[in-house]
C-alpha cells in the first residue's frame, strides 16, 4: 500500500490522526497533516483506508498493488 497526502487540501479535521495515529500526525504549528509512514504495514491497511474515506477534504490517496 502506498499512501499520499495532498497537504494544501488538508483542513485539519484530525480524523486520520484519531483513526491511524501510526500513519498520520498533525504539524504542531497549524494542525495540518503529516504523513508518518507512506508504505504502512498490513495491519494498518484498514485504518488507512478508513482515514482516506472519511477525510472531509479528500486529501488522502491510497494506492494498492
Amino acid at each position, binding site marked *: 500500500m502506498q499512501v499520499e497526502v495532498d497537504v494544501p487540501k488538508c483542513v*485539519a479535521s484530525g480524523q486520520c490522526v484519531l483513526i491511524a495515529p501510526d500513519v498520520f500526525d498533525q504539524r504542531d*504549528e*497549524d*494542525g495540518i497533516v503529516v504523513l508518518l509512514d507512506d508504505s504502512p504495514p498490513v495491519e494498518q491497511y484498514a485504518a488507512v483506508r478508513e482515514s482516506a474515506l472519511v477525510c472531509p*477534504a479528500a486529501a488522502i490517496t491510497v494506492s494498492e498493488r
Partner: protein
Amino acid sequence: MATTDPGVPVLSMARDEGAPLDPPRQYEGFRREAPITRVSLGQDAPTAWLVTRWEDARAVLANPEVSTDLTRPGYPARTPMTMPPGFFLFQDDPVHDLFRKVLTREFMVKRIEALRAPTARIFDGLMDEMIAQGPVTDFVEAVALPLPSLVISELLGVPYADHAFFQEHSKVLIDTTVTGEQKATAQAALGDYLETLVQQRRKEPRDDLITRLGEQVDAGTFSARDAADVGAFLLFAGHETTANMIGLGVLALLDHPDQLSRLYAGQAELATAIEELLRYLTIAQSGLARVATEDFSVGDTTIRAGDGLIIMLNSANRDETVFSATADDLDLTRSNARQHIAFGYGIHQCLGQPLARMELQVVLPEVFRRMPELRVADGHEVVYKSHAAAYGPAFLPVSW
C-alpha cells in the same frame, strides 16, 4: 427562487409520534423515491433542493461550486440573515480559510487531549453540585449546558473570575424563551467583553487562544472586533451543540441499557460508541444550507447556479445503503459508524470535532458510573427542541 409553487412540498422537521430520537420517517421515502427533490422552506418562503442520501450529501458538501455565504442570492433561508466575518462558517474562501487556518492548531488532536483532564474536573464539579442538590434536577441546566461553556472558557482563556458572567450571557443566547432584544443585549455584552479581553492579552500575552487571536490582530490579519467575533463564534458553535449531544446521548443510552457496557470496554470501543451516538442522533436537524455558484450535477439531477440546497445530515446518517438495514438501530459496536457526517463534510466540516468527541468520551461513561440508577424522573416529561436548528432536550428532568 422566491416563488411558492403549490406543487412543491413544505419541508418539515417534525418527528414522528413516539420516536423523539429518530429523524422524520418521511426522509426514508425521499431517500428511496426522490433523493434530490424540490422542497419549500415554508409558506411564501424560497424553495431549495433537499439532499437526503449520504453519497449525494458528501458530493454536494465537497463541491467547490457551492457556497455557504448566506447573503448570496438563492441561499435557502426563511428570512434574510447576516453574520460578521468572524462567524467564518458562513464565509467562502479565501475569508473562510484565513480564519480557519488561524484556529486549526487550537483544535489539534494533541492539544484537545491536554484538555481531557480539565474537562473531567469541570464535569466532576458539576456532578458534585447536582448530586448535592438532589433529585429531581434538570440535567440540561445542571450539567449538559454549563460543561461545554466552561470548557470553551478554558480553551479561550476567559479568566475563572469571569466564568459566571460568560456563562450567564451565553445561556441567554440560546434560550428560546427570551426576546430578540435580550439576545442582542447578551450578544453585545459578550462581544464587548471578548474584545476587551483581546486588547488586554495583546498587552499581557498568555498561553491561550485569545492571546493568539490578539497576535493576528497585531499582524494585521484581522481586526480586534473580528477576533472577538471568532471567540463568540466558537462559543456559538461549541456550546449548545455539545450540550444537545450530551443530553440526547444520555437519553439514547437510557433507551439501550444492554449496550452501556460498551462505554467501559476500552478506549477504542468507547470511541466507536461515541461515533455511533453522533451518527444515530445527528443533532443538526435543519440540515446544512448551501447555494450553487455554478451549474453542476449530483446523481441524475442538474443543479443550476443560484439554486439553494438543504443537505439533510440526519437523513444521510440513516442511509441504509451505507449503514445497512440496521441504519435505524443504535449499535455501539457498528464498524463503520465513523463514516457519519454529523459534523458535516468538505472544507467547512466542524473544526471543533476533536473537542466534541473528547467531551462526549469524558462525560457519557462518567454519568452512568456516578449515577447507575439514573432515569427520567417519574411523573416528569422530557421537553425537546422540536423547532431548533440543533435538536436536543430543552428540559431533561432526572432522578438517580
